[in-house]
C-alpha cells in the first residue's frame, strides 16, 4: 500500500470541507473494500478521510413508514437490529449473508452502496425496496443511484449519510453464494408493497444490479413462484467469467427469483 495522509473528522461538515481542500481523497468507512484495493495498489489515494468518528452517520431509526440506516452502520448491526428484524426481516437476513462474521463487524452499508460492486448484496436490496440514498447534498432514488459496475450517482466528495427503506408488506432475498468469495454469484431481492412489486438482481448483470420488469408485472398480478413460469432471462447482458458463464447466470436468475418469491410469499 502506498503512503497517504490520514484525517479523522468528527462532523459531516468537516469531512465535506476536507474533501474539497485536500488533494486526491477517498472516504474510509469499514475499509473492507478500500484497504484490500489499496494493498493491491489498484487504488492509491493521497489522503483518506475516516468517517468512523462522525456520530451523525451512525444509528438506525424506525418510523411508521420506513427504516433509515446511518451510512456507518455495520452489517452486523443490521443483522442484530430488532427494529429491522420486525419491519424488514429480509434486510437483516440479507446482511447476515454478507461475507463472514469478521467482515460483518467492519463493513458498512454506506461503503457497500457507494462501492456498487456488481456482486454485492446491498444494491439489490436498495433497488428492490425502492430505497432513497441520502447524501450531504441531496436525496437520490435507488433507481437513479446505481449506474453500472462500481459506478453511482455520487459526485466527487459527496458523502452518503443514510439510506432510507420504505417498509414493504413482504420481501425476501435469495442468494447463490460464490463458495470461496461468499459474494453473490446471483442474488435476487423481491419486495411487495401494496400492489407494487419490485425485483432486483445482483451478481448477474454485466452492467451491475438490475430490475426485471417482466417478472415484476407478473408478480404484481399474482405473487407466487408460478407467476414466473415461462419468463426466460436471456444470457445477453449477463456477466460471464471463470466461475459461471452468462447462460448459467441467466438460468440462476430464474431459480433465485422463484426462491425469493417463495420465501416472501410464505411470510403471508
Amino acid at each position, binding site marked *: 500500500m502506498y503512503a497517504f495522509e490520514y484525517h479523522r473528522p468528527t462532523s459531516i461538515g468537516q469531512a465535506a470541507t476536507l474533501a474539497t481542500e485536500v488533494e486526491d481523497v477517498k472516504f474510509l468507512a469499514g475499509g473492507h473494500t478500500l*484497504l484490500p484495493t489499496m494493498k493491491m495498489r489498484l487504488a492509491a489515494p493521497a489522503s483518506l478521510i475516516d468517517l468512523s468518528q462522525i456520530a451523525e452517520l451512525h444509528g438506525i431509526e424506525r418510523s411508521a413508514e420506513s427504516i433509515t440506516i446511518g451510512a456507518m452502520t455495520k452489517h452486523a448491526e443490521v443483522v442484530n437490529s430488532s427494529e429491522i428484524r420486525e419491519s424488514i426481516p429480509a434486510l437483516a437476513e440479507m446482511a447476515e449473508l454478507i*461475507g463472514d462474521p469478521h467482515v460483518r463487524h*467492519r463493513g458498512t452499508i454506506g461503503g457497500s452502496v457507494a462501492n456498487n460492486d456488481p456482486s454485492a448484496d446491498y444494491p439489490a436490496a436498495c433497488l428492490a425496496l425502492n430505497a432513497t440514498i441520502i447524501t450531504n447534498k441531496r436525496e437520490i432514488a435507488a433507481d437513479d443511484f446505481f449506474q453500472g459496475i462500481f459506478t453511482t450517482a455520487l459526485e466527487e466528495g459527496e458523502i452518503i449519510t443514510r439510506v432510507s427503506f420504505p417498509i414493504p408488506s413482504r420481501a425476501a432475498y435469495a442468494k447463490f453464494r460464490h463458495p470461496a468469495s461468499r459474494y453473490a454469484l446471483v442474488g435476487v431481492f423481491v419486495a411487495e408493497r401494496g400492489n407494487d412489486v419490485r425485483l432486483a438482481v445482483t451478481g448477474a448483470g454485466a452492467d451491475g444490479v438490475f430490475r426485471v420488469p417482466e417478472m415484476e408485472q407478473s408478480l404484481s398480478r399474482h405473487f407466487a413462484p408460478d407467476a414466473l413460469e415461462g419468463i426466460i432471462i436471456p444470457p445477453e447482458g449477463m456477466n460471464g467469467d471463470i466461475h459461471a458463464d452468462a447462460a448459467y447466470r441467466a438460468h440462476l436468475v430464474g431459480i433465485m427469483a422463484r426462491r425469493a418469491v417463495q420465501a416472501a410469499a410464505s411470510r403471508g
Partner: protein
Amino acid sequence: MTTVSLTVNGQSVTADVDPRTLLVQFLRENLRLTGTHVGCDTSQCGACVVHLNGQAVKACTVLAVQADASVVTTIEGLAQGGELHPMQAAFREHHGLQCGYCTPGMIMAAVDMVNRKGSNLDEQTIRAELEGNLCRCTGYHNIVKAVAAGAQAMVQNPVRQAAE
C-alpha cells in the same frame, strides 16, 4: 506519522505510526505480539483475527489508526496466569490443530462466536460461523469438535470467560 493510543491485552500503548500501518503489523512488529498471524493478507483466511472492542475482526484489513482509543485482545491475551483459556485447552484436547498456523485466528473467532451465540453451538452453526477462517491442514472436523467443547467449557468456568 500519526499517534495512536489503544489498550492491548489490558495494557495501554501509545505509538507514532505511519498511517498505512495495518493493525496486524502494529501488533506483530511494534508490540512483538507474533501470535496473530498473516496468512493471506487479502482478507480471506482469518489467521489475523483479533478482538477489537470485543468483536472479531481481520487485523490485516484494519489500519492501526482505525484502532485508536480501542481495546484489542489478541491470542496472547486469552490465557490467564499461565493457564490456558478454556477454548485454547479444548483445541489442544481435541486435536483442533496440526501446523497451528490458523489456530490463533480460529480460537479468537471461536471465543467471539460463543460471546455472540452462547455456548450451545451445533455443528451447522459452528461451520457457518467459521466461514471466514481457513485451515489447510485439519479438514475442520476436529476444529468443530474443539469449538463445541470449548464453548461448553467457557460456561462451566464463567470466571475465566469474564477475564477476556
